């Protein structure tokens, strides 16, 4: 007879958690928004240098990564449908595909950054500072910061999806309580959304 | 108060700025006093001892409109006066007397078109003076209160400020943007002289040659004092922004060049390099980018004098 006051009965409010997730997405949008402001101002001030530097980036890798992200966005969106149709196997499969695609994206990114490093281009590298124009330094500085931050979000998104996957497996996320999976999906789409803008702004300047 | 007293019309901007000031302050005082007294009066009149039952009033749309519209009009008037006092600061007339102002930690250097350099700003009276503001390191602020002008001096950009001094005399000049340790000492003075007097000063280059000095190292010391080395360096062994000069000559210094650490002896060549290209070798434990190159500001001869002085610091 000790503990009668049970604390807030664990009530489940999917609308609240969805709203919370959206609000968080807004802050993420403004986080990148800050960087987009910086980018656009510097591009406006150094149009030629940005074009020159943009040509150094590999459009093919960029395009492949875009498609990977788009496909993974679809698979995770489908996974909620699968969950709601009570098809647990398909849900799990779709989630695994999403995570694998995310990994492929990161591997690509790794090689892409690797080549840049190989060419002596990294933030603050002597080649960058000594041999390039100011606009190009800015371009690559922003390139590393923005794609780096985006990659960090991919990693966070992957963890988020993995947690959801685990919970789907255990059955605590199911057709009646899909919130966690839906939120993981929302987050993942955010990552996609940002890339949709990063890709043309960095890879498609000619 | 500057606003009211001795700086009346010290420059062409004073009246515009002060007008805006008085207008805003005037309106503000009326409101402040009026509202404060209303508040106190209500507190007295409707005290619960006198007025135990409140009358419930939930609002009034008429009043809301009134006290939205009136302040709006008032602030637009304030905006207008603010704008009117400021607009002329943005565009200098064509025919101006030009001076280049270089800010660095922690002094200003004024360069005139005939090559004259000073650390006090000399300007002719009743003539439009245009300043070209550049900074070598961080942002500084160029502020002459009596003239009501202020402009940040931003590295990487060339800024402009102009004014017509209208009063003879000495005026204060401050640095207003925080720029490191001696920010509050980065001031100087403006000397406004009537045109003939100014001209005499302007063409006279002889006066500036230094008076004879007794000891052989005093010239070095004087140069360093004038250009401001002691803002960052001491001679008594304490570390400020930069390393101390005590016993520096001939000592072994650990420096970093492009990230590699190595040891050198502080000789003439090293000191010269430290002055002309300080960011090439960074003394261990100090930051890059604080000391700026003095190329063009100190001649080879000056550096020799400085080295001679540094030698004497045992």
């Amino acid at each position, binding site marked *: 007879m000790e503990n*009668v*006051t049970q*604390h*807030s009965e664990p009530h489940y409010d999917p609308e*609240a958690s969805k709203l*919370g997730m959206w*609000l968080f997405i807004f*802050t993420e949008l403004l986080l*990148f*928004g*800050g960087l987009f*402001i910086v980018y656009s*101002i510097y591009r406006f001030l150094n149009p030629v240098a940005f074009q020159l530097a943009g040509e150094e980036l590999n459009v093919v890798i960029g395009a492949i990564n875009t498609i990977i992200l788009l496909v993974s966005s679809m698979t995770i969106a489908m996974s909620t449908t699968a969950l709601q149709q009570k098809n647990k196997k398909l849900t799990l499969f779709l989630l695994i595909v999403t995570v694998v695609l995310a990994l492929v994206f990161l591997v690509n990114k790794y090689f892409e950054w690797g080549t840049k490093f190989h060419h002596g281009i990294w*933030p603050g590298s002597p080649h960058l500072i000594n041999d390039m*124009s*100011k*606009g190009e*330094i800015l371009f690559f500085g922003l390139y*590393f910061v923005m794609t780096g931050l985006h990659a960090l979000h991919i990693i966070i998104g992957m963890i988020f999806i993995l947690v959801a996957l685990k919970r789907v497996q255990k059955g605590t996320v199911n057709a009646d309580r899909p919130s966690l999976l839906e939120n993981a999906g929302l987050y993942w789409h955010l990552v996609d959304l940002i890339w949709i803008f990063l890709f043309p702004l960095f890879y498609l300047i000619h | 108060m*500057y606003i009211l007293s001795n700086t009346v019309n010290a420059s062409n*901007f004073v009246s515009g*700025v002060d007008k*805006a*000031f008085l207008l805003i302050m005037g309106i*503000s005082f009326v409101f402040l006093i009026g509202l404060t007294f*209303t*508040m106190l009066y*209500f507190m007295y009149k409707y*005290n*619960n001892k006198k007025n*135990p039952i*409140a*009358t*419930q*009033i*939930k*609002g009034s749309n008429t009043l*809301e409109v009134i*006290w939205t519209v009136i*302040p709006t009009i008032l602030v637009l008037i304030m905006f207008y006066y603010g*704008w009117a*006092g*400021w607009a002329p*600061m*943005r565009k200098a007339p064509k025919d101006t007397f030009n001076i280049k102002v270089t800010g660095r930690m922690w002094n200003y250097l004024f360069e005139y078109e005939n090559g004259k350099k000073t650390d006090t700003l000399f300007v002719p009276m009743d003539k439009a003076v245009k300043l070209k503001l550049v900074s070598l390191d*961080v942002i500084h602020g160029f*502020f002459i209160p009596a003239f*009501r002008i*202020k402009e*940040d001096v*931003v*590295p*990487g*950009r060339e800024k402009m400020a102009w004014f017509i001094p209208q009063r003879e005399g000495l005026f*204060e000049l401050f640095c*207003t943007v*925080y720029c490191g340790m001696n920010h509050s000492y980065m001031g100087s003075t403006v000397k406004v002289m009537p045109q003939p007097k100014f001209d005499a000063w302007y063409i006279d280059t002889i006066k500036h040659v230094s008076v004879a000095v007794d000891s052989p190292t005093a010239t070095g010391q004087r140069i360093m004092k004038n250009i401001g080395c002691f803002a960052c360096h001491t001679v008594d062994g304490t570390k400020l922004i930069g390393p101390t000069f005590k016993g520096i000559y001939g000592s072994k210094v650990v420096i970093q060049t492009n990230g590699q650490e190595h040891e050198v002896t502080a000789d003439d060549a090293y000191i010269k390099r430290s002055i002309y290209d300080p960011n090439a070798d960074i003394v261990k*434990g100090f930051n890059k*980018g*604080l000391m700026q190159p003095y190329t063009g500001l100190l001649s080879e001869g000056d550096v020799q004098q400085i080295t001679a002085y540094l030698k004497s610091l045992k």
Partner: protein
Amino acid sequence: MQTAVPILHEVSYLEYKGKYKGLFSWILSTDHKRIGLMYMYAMMTFFLIGVMLGLAMKLELIAPGRTIMGPQTYNALFTVHGVIMIFMIVIPGLPAVFGNFMLPIMIGAKDVAFPKLNLLSWYIYMTGSILVICSVLFGNGIPDTGWTFYAPYSFKTGTNLLPAIFGAFVLGFASILTGLNFIVTIHRMRCPGMTWLKMPLFAWSLYGTAWIQLLATPVVGITLVLVALERIFGIGVFDPALGGDPVLYQHLFWIYSHPAVYVMILPAMGAISEIIPTFSQKHIFGYKAIVASTIAIAFVGYFVWGHHMFTSGMSGTAQYTFSILTFIVAIPSAIKVFNWISTMHKGSINPDIPFLWAISFIFVFMIGGFSGLVLGALATNVYVHDTAFVVAHFHFIVFGGVGFAFFGAIHYWYPKMFGRMYDKAWAKIGWAFFFVGFLTLYSPMFYLGMMGMPRRYYDYLPEFHAANILSTLGSWVMAFGLLIIIINLFRSAKNGAIAPMNPWNGKTLEWTVPSPPPTENFEDIPVYGEKDGPYEY
């Protein structure tokens, strides 16, 4: 032992025994009231540090030249003072303490929407604060950039800036999460019948604030990350030597930091909007107008940041746009002041201590606001920008505004929070010293600014001496007042008279629960009928 059940339900949140004992029952509690108190204790501690630094600065400025410290120490002092006061006290201040404590009760909910997240925010807040303190204690030198971290000085200085920047970044996260929590709470957990327009004004102000926290904080977050990267790698974004533009840093910084000043003031205004009707025993005047002006301040306040940069070399177009927007954002504040004063009209005023704080708030807020108008006009801003005038403006409005509202709020809600009443006579004496000290401390700074004394100055001309002495004296009077207030509050938490449920005859929901409230706040969620409302006397 069946009979014990209803009694146990009434156990106050202070005595409630949960899974954990002692300290752990606090630091692991997800109860919004305990979290609110934990914020308050943490802030009090940091606040006292900040006050000490402020007093030390004033002591240094008592005479020109060196008095008790060197210039580098002084620079470090105002930096740490500014960072602590802004990022650790007044930005989270009212929302984290009173928002957490009162918001759920005021809207008739049992807790916030995400109680665990709420606790997490507190931990994030503590982490950030400790990082800031670390930057003082360890490394080579205390940060010395001013709380604005202006580039390029912020990546040139040799001092230990990284932990401070990182700390501010982390504190931003705590602020974002709190805001997020409040928005969801307000959207989803208002009690049945409480429509948006029946919500107490304090809750409205928190709603407006939360949106600013959400949308503005990330911008400064990323800006601080860029400064840190600039320091570590030299990526060049703000370094003029590498093509960057230091003025862009200022844009980004103020995109956050101007809205942040409204993050500070809105909840303060919200608290005042609660105190005034309660102590006038009258329905608030112009409820809808106050709601609208809250939203307007939050929204327009977003677009005026450039008024901090009038001398930085922006384009003329930007300058007058920002100036006019600055004036426009002053109007909703004016509307609020008029409505507050009208609420007193024909009321039945109980001039008790919270009310005294409220009217002194209005008084100093007006002075601060009017000096803001001087700063918002272009010509006068150019003259007084970066002088002691600005320092006076923001102390009047940040500290006079937010600080006074904080003290008003704590005297107002104290009986509810602790179930006891403080000693009113001492509270009034403390208030009197504080108020007089405040005016003596900061008024001379207006004068100094108009004379042209720049801010962040360790040393000054002899002409400025007299005003500085006065100001320093004021700082002691005020600190004395503060001491009385704090001691009074602390002692009363143990020894004060037991407070009734509704000592001020307030009408908002927090006055319908016992003092102190039970863990679950309400046994049954209240329901608002057609006629009910927060200010229906």
